[in-house]
């Protein structure tokens, strides 16, 4: 009973926080809607001009549309120390945390966002411990000679496929349930998703990180009012690095099942080339994002989310680092040890996909899609002459 009471308390607390955050979004956007100087910076402002008031659904939608480029903060004549105290990027980032918590599946797991660095650390610790223990139990040692990069001698292919398939499958389901609930709340009934050119436009905005360009293409803000394109570049390295790694695994799966070609693959094979390129991206990208995050102006962010942001960045970085180390020393006696460490990190990621920073991409893509759809309809607010 105590556990349930505890959870109810947490849910109540989350709701009160959400109410306060939504009220602040509504207050600020009333000021922004009367000003509109920032209109060309990003989609948040074009969404704003279609509304006169901002409810919970609008707040969730616009919060996830915001990429936290912060151009509007430095341009704002009403930013602190002005008595209006307008800080849209920080306010929307607070609501984003509410989105992640509110739409996590199951809902109680949304609480993992409160101490997200801890959650990620625990998931990785468990993952690494699990694979180290499994290696010792099955092989008797972490350092074995003469395996010649044969990973499946440690963990049979099917064992890996089932374990990681199950973790990934669960995460995919949890994210799908969450984003569907999000979509239903932020969309009007009968709001169709099947608008091909809207899907194309949303995909393009997401894949090019259009809204980290600041509207003028000079980039976004990090430390001060100067613009930088490095956040977009490092994010591209991270995202496309991740996708290359994903492609590497997918190609390897095809090799295995379709053509019966089993790992280890040679250095100049497609899976290894894709994985190496992706791994490089996943080293440089997260390192750069971490560097930018360390220098980011506190005005721009919700400080409670630093551990989530940096935890996720670190997780990706170490997955890549351990992966590349495994490639480098796969012929050595260290292979079982390196394999266990690497698999442990990957498991940490898979387990926290729906309960960590990874979710931002899913909700942001949904918000971009909603924006692309609504932009194709006439504006219900016809402010007309000024």
């Amino acid at each position, binding site marked *: 009973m105590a556990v349930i009471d505890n959870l109810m308390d947490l849910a109540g607390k989350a709701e009160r926080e959400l109410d306060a955050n939504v009220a602040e979004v509504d207050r600020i956007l*009333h000021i922004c809607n009367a000003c*509109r*100087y920032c209109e060309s910076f990003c989609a948040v402002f074009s969404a704003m001009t279609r509304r006169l008031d901002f409810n919970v659904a609008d707040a969730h939608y616009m919060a996830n549309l915001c990429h936290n480029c912060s151009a509007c903060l*430095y*341009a704002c004549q009403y930013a602190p120390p002005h008595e209006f105290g307008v800080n849209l990027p920080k306010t929307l980032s607070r609501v984003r945390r509410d989105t992640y918590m509110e739409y996590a599946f199951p809902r109680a797991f949304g609480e993992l966002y409160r101490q997200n660095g801890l959650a990620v650390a625990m998931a990785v610790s468990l993952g690494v411990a699990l694979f180290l223990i499994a290696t010792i139990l099955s092989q008797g040692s972490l350092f074995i000679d003469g395996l010649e990069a044969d990973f499946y001698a440690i963990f049979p292919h099917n064992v890996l496929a089932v374990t990681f398939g199950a973790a990934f499958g669960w995460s995919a389901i949890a994210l799908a349930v969450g984003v569907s609930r999000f979509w239903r709340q932020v969309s009007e009934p009968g709001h169709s998703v099947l608008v091909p050119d809207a899907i194309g436009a949303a995909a393009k905005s997401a894949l090019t990180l259009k809204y980290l360009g600041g509207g003028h293409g000079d980039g976004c803000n990090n430390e001060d009012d100067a613009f930088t394109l490095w956040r977009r570049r490092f994010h591209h390295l991270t995202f496309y690095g991740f996708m290359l790694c994903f492609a590497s695994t997918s190609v390897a799966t095809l090799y295995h099942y379709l053509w019966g070609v089993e790992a280890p693959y040679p250095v100049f094979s497609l899976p290894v080339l894709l994985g190496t390129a992706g791994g490089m991206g996943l080293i440089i990208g997260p390192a750069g994002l971490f560097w930018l995050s360390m220098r980011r102006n506190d005005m721009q962010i919700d400080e409670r989310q630093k551990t989530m942001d940096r935890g996720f960045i670190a997780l990706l970085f170490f997955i890549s680092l351990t992966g590349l180390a495994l490639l480098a020393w796969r012929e050595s006696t260290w292979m079982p040890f390196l394999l266990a460490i690497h698999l442990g990190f990957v498991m940490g990621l898979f387990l926290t996909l729906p309960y960590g920073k990874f979710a931002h991409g899913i909700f942001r893509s949904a918000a971009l899609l909603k924006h692309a759809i609504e932009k194709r309809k006439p504006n219900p607010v016809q*402010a*007309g002459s000024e």
Partner: protein
Amino acid sequence: MVDVLVIGGGNAALCAALMAREAGASVLMLEASPKEWRGGNSQHTRNLRCMHDAPQDVLVDAYPEEEFWQDLLKVTGGETNEHLARLAIRASSTCRDWMRKHGVRFQPPLSGALHVARTNAFFMGGGKALVNAYYRSAEALGVKVRYDTPVAELILDGDRFVGAITEAGEKITAKTAVLAAGGFESNREWLRAAWGRNDRGEWPADNFLIRGTRFNQGVLLKYMMEAGADIIGDPSQGHCVAIDARAPLYDGGICTRIDCVSLGVVVNREGERFYDEGEDFWPKRYAIWGRLVAQQPGQIGYSIIDRKVIGRFMPPVFPGITAESLPELAEKLGLPVGTFMQTVNAYNAACQPGTFDHTTLDDCRTDGVSPPKTHWAQRIDKPPFYAYALRPGITFTYLSLKVDETAAVRFADRPSPNLFVAGEMMAGNVLGKGYTAGVGMSIGTAFGRIAGTQAAAAAARGEQQIRRQ
């Protein structure tokens, strides 16, 4: 000793500093405000009125010199200097590449600002983004900037600038100087004196709100008047707009505007209408309504609309006062209910049938009521009713130092060899009264750039003279 001392920190000061630095002069800027409030009124601006003979990036169609000049002539009622006005107009057609070079970005006209899509180029992010870009560029070029450094007085040797004395008592000398420290709109005592006392025994300026910075106290304007510089303009003239009465005393900026005036009626404290609310589109009329409200008892007006026009004007920053009936609304506003109802009933009865369209000068007008309402006259009859109280909001004052095309400060009609002026401190040469959107930035940019160029040249001339001696 620096070559050019720029006193001020807004658009005109920055344009002067950048031009002087580009001409090779060493430049020191003194901004009265702390860094977070830098930029004076420029941080609240949003666009630049631009002459152009053909479509240009964000500007559609054409806005030729003659049309710009005629617009200016109309709003100022002839209280302008054609030579200087045309200089600023022509400069507005060529300055934007230079602005872009220093990091200013333009955006397509804002939604709800289509009336100025042809004439005005909007800054992406507004004036504060422009100010930030200029400061970044200035610092990158080696311009020295000091914040929190208000200047109390100047040291002059006849018509020559020698140095400035800061409020903290520090003496800063320079070969030349540009004054770009704004008008006196933030100085409430001066405003009070300038507007004086009216027939009702009121001091109207006591009820004014300042739309912009609190740092434009007119210290240097006063100093130069006392030093005998040539002055132009009426101290009660300025860019004065009707804004939400609940706006903060300073820095309310654009969002405190009330854009529903032309869609309803406006009554004064006595419950009576006093001007044709539908004379023209609001962007073409907003600049006269500040004065109109200033002339009403208590310097207050009430814009009254009904449900029909909600969503047809730019959303106001504060919610309106609402009521389900007109008498209830009058009571909530503290207006005499009888007179108010007489006014609204007379207006409603006078509304002629027509096709309402807030995006054109439509045919909805009144007949047989005074003052008439010539467009967008619809009966006010659909609850809920909304009211917004209006106060005069002063943007900047026009009392100025008189200049010629070199932007030199003048004494007894002779130019100073090394003291120049730009921005609000001389805008009154072009704007004797009235206002048209974006022209303040056209004047500030044009004369800021001239003043910077002239100051750098004067510093170089002084250098040559010293070397010859």
